[in-house]
């Protein structure tokens, strides 16, 4: 995406030269044309449109705009509890989106965050439950997180292997593996032989027993806040990924493979390993997100424990469009909006789905705007 020309001074007259193209002479008309196509303008307009629809929905639900905004704001920043749970959500989203970005650099689209998250969560629960009750946090938590990473990476490796060896589209395979992963969690929490807690009565819920204290993610910040170490893990992951992608040879190789597998192969890059590794790493980060969800209160693996984070993280990754700064920003926005939405329902009796609709609209508008910005001006009447 090229930034528009914003020079105000007229460009110098092109001297007669042997070059085939004359020097740029942006006409005023072109500049006016490109202004509304600037990515930032587009994002702002999209956000504004989404916000307007949100307001209409709030009014339609019979609430006052003012009180609704107050409820939303309180849900987002009103208490350290609100901030803490927002940060937790944002961290999970950021992990999945950072992984998505890595795979995307290698030219692969990982839509399997949900399945990888399920695999990671299941493995984390399995490992956490076999740990002795007195396990120290310094041992338990790293083990649980590592189990999540490995299981998520293994889950993604199935798709990676099919892609590298057989050329099967990773979009299809990762998408379908989601459903298997979700089903696997269901199976695990329903079978006592697997991870279900001991059934003592007909009211025993189909979920795992709680993880031992040493396997639970420690809280950070003040006692009121539910924010856990996942926030730190996510911040480190996003930062490290950003540095690797931008400042190392590995990042450059991933980018080369993503842009042109053929040219990369010609230049001797291990295309299959880079592609497969990128996708596996994406799965690993999603697996850590799953482990974090299991190792956060109520510390159990249950059906629907993923709450659709895998798909929400995918959306964050798509919106961030390859920038890890944007991954952090969009994750925070979505994380805070989600907790705000819950309070919106509690305090202002506006359905929390309003926020989901606004989020989805934001995605739609931005996607539509992409088309608008990338279309070659003048190519069609």
């Amino acid at each position, binding site marked *: 995406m*090229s930034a528009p*020309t914003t020079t105000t001074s007229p460009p110098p007259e092109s001297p007669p030269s*042997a*070059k*085939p*193209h*004359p020097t*740029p*002479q*942006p*006409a005023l008309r*072109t500049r006016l044309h490109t202004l509304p196509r600037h990515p930032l303008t587009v994002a702002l307009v999209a956000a504004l449109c989404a916000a307007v629809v949100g307001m209409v929905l709030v009014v339609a639900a019979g609430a006052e705009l003012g009180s609704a905004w107050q409820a939303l704001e309180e849900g987002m920043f009103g208490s350290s509890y609100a901030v803490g749970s927002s940060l937790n959500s944002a961290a999970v989203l950021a992990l999945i989106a950072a992984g998505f970005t890595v795979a995307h650099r290698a030219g692969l689209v990982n839509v399997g965050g949900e399945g990888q998250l399920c695999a990671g969560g299941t493995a984390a629960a399995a490992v956490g439950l076999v740990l002795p009750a007195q396990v120290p946090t310094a041992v338990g938590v790293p083990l649980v997180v590592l189990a999540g990473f490995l299981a998520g990476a293994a889950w993604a490796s199935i798709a990676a292997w099919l892609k590298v060896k057989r050329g099967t589209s990773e979009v299809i395979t990762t998408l379908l593996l989601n459903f298997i992963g979700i089903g696997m969690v269901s199976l695990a929490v329903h079978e006592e032989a697997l991870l279900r807690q001991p059934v003592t009565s007909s009211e025993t819920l189909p979920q795992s027993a709680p993880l031992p204290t040493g396997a639970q993610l420690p809280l950070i910040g003040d006692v009121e806040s539910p924010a856990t170490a996942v926030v730190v893990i996510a911040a480190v992951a996003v930062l490290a990924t950003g540095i690797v992608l931008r*400042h*190392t*040879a590995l*990042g*450059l*190789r991933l*980018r*080369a493979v993503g*842009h*042109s597998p*053929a*040219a*990369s*192969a*010609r*230049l*001797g*890059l291990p295309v299959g390993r880079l592609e497969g590794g990128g996708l596996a790493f994406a799965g690993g980060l999603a697996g850590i997100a799953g482990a974090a969800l299991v190792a956060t209160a109520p510390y159990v693996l249950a059906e629907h424990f993923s709450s659709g984070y895998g798909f929400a993280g995918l959306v964050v990754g798509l919106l961030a469009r390859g920038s890890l700064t944007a991954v952090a920003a969009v994750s925070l926005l979505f994380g805070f909006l989600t907790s705000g939405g819950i309070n919106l329902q509690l305090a202002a009796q506006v359905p929390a789905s309003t926020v989901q609709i606004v989020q989805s609209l934001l995605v739609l508008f931005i996607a539509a705007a992409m088309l608008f910005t990338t279309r*070659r001006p*003048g*190519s*069609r*009447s």
Partner: protein
Amino acid sequence: MTAALEITGLVKSYGSMRALDGVDLVVEAGTVHCVLGENGAGKSTLCHAVAGSLTSDEGSLLLYGESYAPRRPADALAAGVAMVHQHFSLVSTLTVGENLRLLRLPDLAGRIARVREAYGLVLELDAVAGKLPVGVRQRVEIVKALLRDPRLLVLDEPTGVLGPAETDALLETCRRIAAAGHAVVLVTHKLGEAVRAGDHATVLRGGRVAGGGPMAELSAERLVPLMIGRSVGALDATVAGAVGLEPGAVEPVGPVTVGPGAAGSVPAAVEPRGSAPAALDSAGSAPAAGESAGPVPVTADSAGGGADDGDGQRVGGAALGLSEVTVRRADGTYALDRAALEVGFGEIVGIAGVEGNGQSELMAVIAGSLAPDDGRVVLHGRDLTRAKPAARTGAGLGVVPEDRHHEGCVPELSVAENLHLGRLGEFKRFGVFLDRPALGRATEKVLGEHDVRAPGAFAPMASLSGGNQQKVVIARELALDPLVCLAASQPTRGLDIGAVEAVHARIRAAAARGAGVLVVSAELDELLALCDRVLVAYRGRLLGPVDPRAEGARERIGALMVGADGAGVPAGVGQSPPTRGPSPSKAIGAH
């Protein structure tokens, strides 16, 4: 009489780049008007503006005296303007007849018959379009355009993919269309075609009209300076070849061959085969010169002849040797059929042929992106048949791929990154990070050495012109140490004359340094002027070799290209294609 097309002050900008900058052009009815120019001169943009596939920013068009402003291709068709695009638009799985029916024209059979009678364009309606040779496919495209009985026909670079005979037929068709009273705009960057077929010519350079006039008053010598802005005398014969001039038009470069002693080791000093005419001792065009010069390339007849029977050192001694390489396509046909060749050290071997006769597969086998079903690829004694590209590069095989944007470079990455992608390990800081400053310095050095015009070391590759992109690719491959063999496919395709010259100079320099060079090109003139030996790809086989300096070499290669082996091919040169059984090339494969 009114002109068929009158263009006044046409301007078209892409962002800040002016593709057309006030172009004026008048095309008379009943004439073939050639639009000439280098790549990026604005030829295609002009075509698209006339055919309605893009709208111009300023300027006006008059079609037979009426104002004409097409906003979409349908407008152009309705006004009687048809365009034959550079790339074919046929559904390859449908038959020719079905493809024509897609146009949904009334009285199709009648129209086809009229076109056949008027222009002699015969079509086999039941043939599947995808299985036809390119020349025939192009004929279908032209018939498609003519079925609407257009008043103006625009042909955008129609001869790019055609062999010599097909090109002749196309130019003949253009003449007939003009003779029928229509106007033809023929866009090309090959001067020879324009001189042969055009009534008028207009030369574009940098989006402006550089000159033009009736063809009778123009000659190749006058057109070339208009196209490139300097005189033809400064050009080299191969460059003239690349633009389609007869080689006689400029002084040919003398052949300098490497003696037999050079085989097996990189010669310490090889006579430079530079473009300076001083390099030729016995005037290069004389047929006997090749032989009288004595040192016939050591491998001159190895591909077709049986002279190397039992000589096991041959494959190991050559820079690059291919034996019995066979590649089958998915449908069971042979893309390569026991292809064998040898490239000696310091030798330039060319592969001619109409596209699609196995050249692409041959290069893929050499480059390592395609594993042959059978046969061996040997680089200076090392068997690389199944080696990964990295191992091939390490062994000293430089490859300039056919498709620059697909395989040659990553257009989205910077010049520096493209140059050093294969050896990023050499640019590390603190053991982990990429040392961009060092990368930039190394790149600046290469850019200077190879005279690459780039906005900077970290400018995206896509921001460079095609010629400069190719210079970067070649610089990268020539930087191999040691460079045993350079395999270049279509190294000058789509480049303008100045860049062609630079690329040829680099290829010659590589050979002069002792590396073997294999050049695959669709431009026969280029091969004739550049190579020591020319093989011809025909249906997956490599025929020949032909000595490009011998008399009638062009005709012999032309005959081999269309499979007319025997006809006009003296015995001993056109060794008949290997037949199943004891073949001449078996001798190589046996080791």
